[in-house]
């Protein structure tokens, strides 16, 4: 008690900015995760060395890595790994841009006005549970087999998460903050610009993160549509020629890219909304 008081007198203003350091006896989660992956890799290597499974079904790690190097250098089905990757990323980001441009205003309408909610809520609820493979044929019939169709398929899958997250962000704007701005003389436009948009931003970014995950996993389906490049297309082709090591390599690359995208969006979050969850 007396100690607290002394501290209060000596430093009445400054909140100490010490982040909690790793507590003694805390579970080292990262270490455990790392060990899990290491064990998995070791088991894979062992089964390959002992030839427990024919390499047509499960190629050795070394073979997969070899293909990684080979495809990166020489390419597979007329394109290098980097070109396949660029094609896939290009589609996913084009789709993301489209989904944001369409989805954020729709989410805004749902969150901010009963009329908007009445119009768009049912549409999104109908669209949301349909798997991409189900609407794929229709998209081809309507838009052909060109690049726009592939982007559209990914964008449709990304739309619902962005709309829903935006709407919930808009709905969750603190009444006190709205009132505070109104009492400072804010007009309706200024309220949107200075309070509603920034309030909803963390939620929109969460939606973008979920959408990127969804979009990336829709990729293989989208690249079934007469693509000539892309990671999904590469895996498809490899599967037809029974080149299992390229299939496995492609799967691992897709997983690694998904992981990197997740890390990227977390960086963007830390940069754009460092205050999220703190105030």
């Amino acid at each position: 008690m007396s100690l607290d008081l002394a501290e209060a007198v000596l430093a009445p203003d400054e909140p100490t900015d010490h982040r909690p350091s790793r507590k003694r006896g805390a579970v080292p989660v990262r270490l455990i995760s790392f060990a899990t992956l290491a064990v998995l890799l070791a088991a894979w290597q062992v089964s390959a060395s002992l030839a427990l499974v024919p390499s047509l079904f499960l190629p050795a790690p070394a073979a997969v890595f070899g293909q990684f190097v080979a495809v990166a250098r020489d390419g597979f089905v007329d394109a290098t790994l980097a070109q396949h990757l660029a094609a896939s990323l290009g589609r996913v980001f084009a789709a993301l841009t489209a989904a944001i441009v369409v989805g954020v205003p729709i989410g805004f309408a749902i969150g901010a006005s009963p009329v908007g909610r009445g119009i768009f809520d049912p549409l999104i609820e109908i669209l949301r549970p349909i798997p991409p493979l189900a609407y794929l044929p229709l998209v081809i019939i309507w838009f052909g087999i060109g690049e726009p169709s592939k982007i559209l398929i990914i964008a449709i899958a990304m739309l619902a998460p962005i709309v829903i997250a935006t709407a919930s962000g808009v709905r969750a704007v603190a009444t006190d903050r709205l009132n505070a701005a109104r009492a400072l003389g804010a007009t309706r436009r200024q309220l949107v610009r200075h309070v509603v948009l920034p309030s909803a931003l963390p939620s929109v970014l969460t939606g973008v993160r979920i959408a990127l995950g969804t979009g990336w996993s829709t990729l293989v389906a989208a690249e079934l549509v007469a693509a000539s490049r892309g990671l999904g297309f590469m895996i498809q082709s490899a599967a037809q020629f029974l080149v299992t090591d390229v299939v496995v390599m492609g799967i691992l690359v897709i997983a690694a890219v998904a992981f990197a995208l997740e890390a990227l969006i977390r960086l963007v979050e830390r940069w754009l909304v460092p205050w999220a969850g703190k105030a």
Partner: protein
Amino acid sequence: MAHLAIESVSLRYDDGPQVLGGVSLDLRDGEFLVVVGRSGCGKTSLLNLAAGFVPPTTGRVAVNGVAITGPGADRAVVFQDDALFPWLSTAENVALGPRLSGIGKAERRRIAENQLAIVGLEGLADRPIWRLSGGQRQRVGLARALAARPTFLLMDEPLGALDAMTREAMQELLVEVWAKSGAGVLLITHGVEEALFLATRIVVMAPNPGRIVKTLNVDFSRRRLAGESARSIKSSRDFVAMREALLDAIFEREAA
């Protein structure tokens, strides 16, 4: 002379019970009006009416004889849980009012630094507000309200979340700021001593429906401004006597 008038106002949220019944209250600039009363008796509702956040069910709220239709920059509000904007820096929070009215960047910066100095936060202009302590945030909320140069300053338990020592320092700050700004202040509190120390007039409210049951004129804040120390005021005989009278007023109705 500016004049905020709450004229025989009653209030009902949707089809709930009557929250306020026939309340009339005047606030003039230069006045420090403090509202006390038990939890749930309608103090915040009264402030929300004065701010224009909710319309009265019957009666009217008027500024200089003209009925208000909503919030306005002439009536600044300090909220109990500060309601600051975490996406803005401390200085940007303080200068939001000037920004909304189209004042330029350099001038806003000057206003913000000036107000921050007044509330004792010089040097914190560029801190993100989520790196401030509770007491600092409360002061930023006050600085933000003052930067709008309001005619009336409405505060809902602005010192509620503070520890005893910070609270006393803030009380002195409020008296100073009030005297300097010349604004008409309406402040809600649960603290009886706080009410006496700050107010020029105290109104006591009672619930079901919320109404004013007693009005007291006091002048301890003027004694503070004349130079008497806070300790000496709070331990003076008339302060203690007033405190008992005020406590009686608050609890009388409860016993009845």
